[in-house]
C-alpha cells in the first residue's frame, strides 16, 4: 500500500478571536473574552500546578485504567513515574491490526510505540524495573519511601504475596496512598484473572447488553469501540486518590488503600437500571440510538450521515416541528394534530417514538448534518451530526478551543492528540510532553531518588533487574 500524502494539520486555518466575535457589541463580547483571558491554554505555563507536590508511581501494565488514572494526575501537575518491566509496558506494542506503519518510531533508537500507549504517555517519566526479582522489589520499596501514591493492577494478591502489597508498604511509608485498579476486583467470587482486559468490564456490568439496536431492530449487544470502562474507572480511581490526599494532608497524616474497578465505575453510572429492576423486575432493554426516557432525544440517519436532535420538553418539541414544518408542512400539521403526542410523558411509548422519528426522518432525509444544525439552531434546539475523527480534528470550534492540538516530540516527531479538558483559571491541566521511550529516565530517577552509582546501574542491568538480561544498556 503506497503512503498517501498526508497534509499538515490543520488543513484549514483556525479562526481568530476577531473573526469569532465579529459584529458583537462590547457587552456581548465581555463575558466570553473574560473567559478566554482566564482559561486559554496558551497561558497554562504562566500558572502553577495544583498537584506539583505529589509523586506518583504508576506500576500498572497492559490495561488502560492505571495509565489513564495517572494521566489525570500528571496533567494536573503530579510527578508521575511509570515503572515499566524491562522492555517496556506490553501495551506499547499494540497497534491496530498489527500494522507497524501506524506506530511511532524513536528517531535515535528506532524503538516503536503504538498510538494506544503513546496517547496516554503524557507528562510521565519512564523507568524500568523487574518486579519479578527480589532485588527489583527491594528497589520498589525504596522508591515508595519517596512517593505519595502508588498505582498497580497486578493479579489480585500478587503484590501482597511478593511482600510489596498495601499491608507491607504502609509499614514502610504510612503516608502512602496505595491504589489497586482492575476490571472486576481483588476480592469476591469473580475477582480478576491474569490477562483480563477491557471490554471485560463492559460486558460484566450490563453496559454491553444495554448498548446497540434492540433485537427487534435486527441489532445485538454492542461494546464501545474504546476501552471505555477503563477511562471511567481510571477517573474514579483519580477521584479516590485525590480524596485520600486531601484527607491525609488535612486531617490524618496517613495514607490508605484504594480499589477502583472499571466494571463498578460503570455500574455507578448506569443510572436507573438497578432501581428499575428492583421496583418491578424490569430489565433495561437496548434502545439503539433512541432514548427510553426522553423524546425527542436521538440520533437518526440524515442525508449525509447521522444526526442528533434533542428536545425533551414542550418548548423545544414545538420548535423542532416548526423547523420541520418550514419544508414539510404536512408533517408538522399531522404531529401537532395528534392528541397522543400532546403530553411530554405520553411521547415516551415505543409506538409514539416510532412515529416521531419516522416523521422527523421525512425532514432529515433532505438535510445534511450541517444544514439541519443550522436550521434547528435558529430555534435554539440542540443538534449536531455524528462526526468522524477527521471531522473532529478540523472542526472550527474544537480547533479554536484547542480540543485537538499537535505536539512536536523530540523522539517521535509530530503527534496529533486530544488535549486535557482541565481548563482552569489558576492551576490548569497541561501537556508537558507526549511519549517517552522505555526507561528514558532511569538515570535521572534512580540517581536523584536512590543515589545509584554507575556500578549500581551496571550490576542491576546485568542481573536483569532494570533491563532485560541480554539487553545492552
Amino acid at each position, binding site marked *: 500500500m503506497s503512503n498517501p500524502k498526508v497534509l499538515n494539520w490543520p488543513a484549514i486555518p483556525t479562526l481568530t478571536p476577531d473573526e469569532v466575535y465579529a459584529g458583537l457589541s462590547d457587552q456581548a463580547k465581555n463575558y466570553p473574552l473574560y473567559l478566554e483571558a482566564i482559561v486559554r491554554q496558551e497561558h497554562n505555563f504562566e500558572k502553577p500546578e495544583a498537584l506539583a507536590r505529589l509523586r506518583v508511581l504508576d506500576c500498572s501494565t497492559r490495561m488502560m485504567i492505571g495509565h489513564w488514572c495517572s494521566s489525570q494526575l500528571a496533567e494536573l501537575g503530579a510527578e508521575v513515574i511509570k515503572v515499566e518491566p524491562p522492555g517496556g509496558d506490553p501495551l506499547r506494542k499494540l497497534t491496530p491490526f498489527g500494522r507497524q506503519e501506524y506506530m511511532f518510531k524513536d528517531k535515535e533508537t528506532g524503538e516503536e510505540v503504538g498510538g494506544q500507549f503513546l496517547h496516554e504517555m503524557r507528562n510521565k517519566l519512564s523507568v524500568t524495573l523487574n518486579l519479578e526479582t527480589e532485588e527489583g522489589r527491594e528497589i520498589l520499596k525504596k522508591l515508595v519511601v519517596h512517593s505519595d501514591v502508588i498505582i498497580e493492577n497486578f493479579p489480585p494478591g500478587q503484590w501482597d504475596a511478593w511482600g510489596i502489597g498495601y499491608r507491607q508498604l504502609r509499614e514502610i511509608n504510612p503516608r502512602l496512598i496505595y491504589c489497586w485498579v482492575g476490571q472486576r476486583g481483588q476480592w469476591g467470587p469473580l475477582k480478576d484473572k491474569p490477562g483480563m482486559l477491557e471490554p471485560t468490564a463492559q460486558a460484566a456490568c450490563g453496559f454491553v447488553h444495554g448498548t446497540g439496536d434492540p*433485537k427487534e431492530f435486527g441489532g445485538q449487544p454492542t461494546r464501545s469501540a474504546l476501552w471505555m470502562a477503563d477511562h471511567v474507572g481510571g477517573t474514579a480511581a483519580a477521584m479516590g486518590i485525590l480524596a485520600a490526599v486531601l484527607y491525609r494532608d488535612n486531617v490524618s497524616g496517613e495514607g490508605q488503600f484504594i480499589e477502583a474497578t472499571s466494571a463498578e465505575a460503570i455500574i455507578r453510572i448506569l443510572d436507573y437500571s438497578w432501581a428499575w429492576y428492583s421496583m*418491578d423486575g*424490569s430489565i433495561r432493554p437496548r434502545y439503539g440510538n433512541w432514548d427510553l426516557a426522553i423524546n425527542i432525544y436521538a440520533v437518526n440517519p440524515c*442525508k449525509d450521515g447521522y444526526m442528533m436532535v434533542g428536545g425533551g420538553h414542550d418548548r423545544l418539541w414545538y420548535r423542532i416541528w416548526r423547523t420541520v414544518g418550514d419544508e414539510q408542512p404536512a408533517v408538522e400539521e399531522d404531529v401537532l394534530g395528534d392528541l397522543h403526542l400532546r403530553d411530554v410523558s405520553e411521547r415516551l411509548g415505543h409506538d409514539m417514538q416510532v412515529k416521531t422519528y419516522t416523521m422527523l*426522518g421525512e425532514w432529515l432525509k433532505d438535510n445534511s448534518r450541517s444544514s439541519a444544525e443550522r436550521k434547528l439552531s435558529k430555534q435554539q434546539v440542540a443538534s449536531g451530526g455524528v462526526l468522524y475523527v477527521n471531522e473532529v480534528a478540523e472542526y472550527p470550534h474544537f480547533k479554536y478551543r484547542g480540543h485537538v492540538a499537535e505536539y512536536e516530540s523530540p523522539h517521535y516527531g509530530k503527534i496529533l492528540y486530544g488535549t486535557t479538558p482541565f481548563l482552569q483559571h489558576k492551576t490548569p491541566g497541561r501537556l508537558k510532553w507526549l511519549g517517552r521511550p522505555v526507561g528514558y529516565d532511569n538515570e535521572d530517577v534512580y540517581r536523584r531518588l536512590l543515589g545509584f552509582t554507575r556500578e549500581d546501574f551496571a550490576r542491576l542491568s546485568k542481573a536483569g533487574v532494570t533491563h532485560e538480561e541480554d539487553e545492552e544498556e
Partner: protein
Amino acid sequence: MLLICSGCQTKNFLDPYPFWNFKGVTKCANCGKLWRIETSSGTCISGPEAATGTPDLLPGFAEKPDYSPISGAGLTRPAPRARKDSVCKPIPIERNVRGQIVSGHPLKKDDLIGSRPKFIAAHSK
C-alpha cells in the same frame, strides 16, 4: 419513510434505521395489502407498488387517518420491552421485587408528613 396505503389511507411508519436503505416488501398494518418499495438514504426511489407473497419487514407502527393506533403481532414489529407486559403509562407500585415497601404510587396531600409519605415515615419508626 411514511407509507400511506393507497387502499385504506392508513399511515404506516417505516422507521428510519431498518428502512433507510431497504429493498423489498412490506405490509399495511390495517388492511394487509402488500407493497414493494425501494429506499435509498431515506428517500423512496421505487414504488410503492402492489406486491404478492410474504412481507420482508413489517412497519414499526401504524395509524388510521383519525390517529387511532394500530399495532400488534403480525401487523407491526414488536416493541422492545423491559417486562412481559408494556403499558407506557405510570405503573403504581407498592411492593418491590423482594416484597418490601416502596413509594411508587401517587399520593394525596394528606398522605404526607412534610415531604415524606406517611407510610414510609411510619415504617421507619
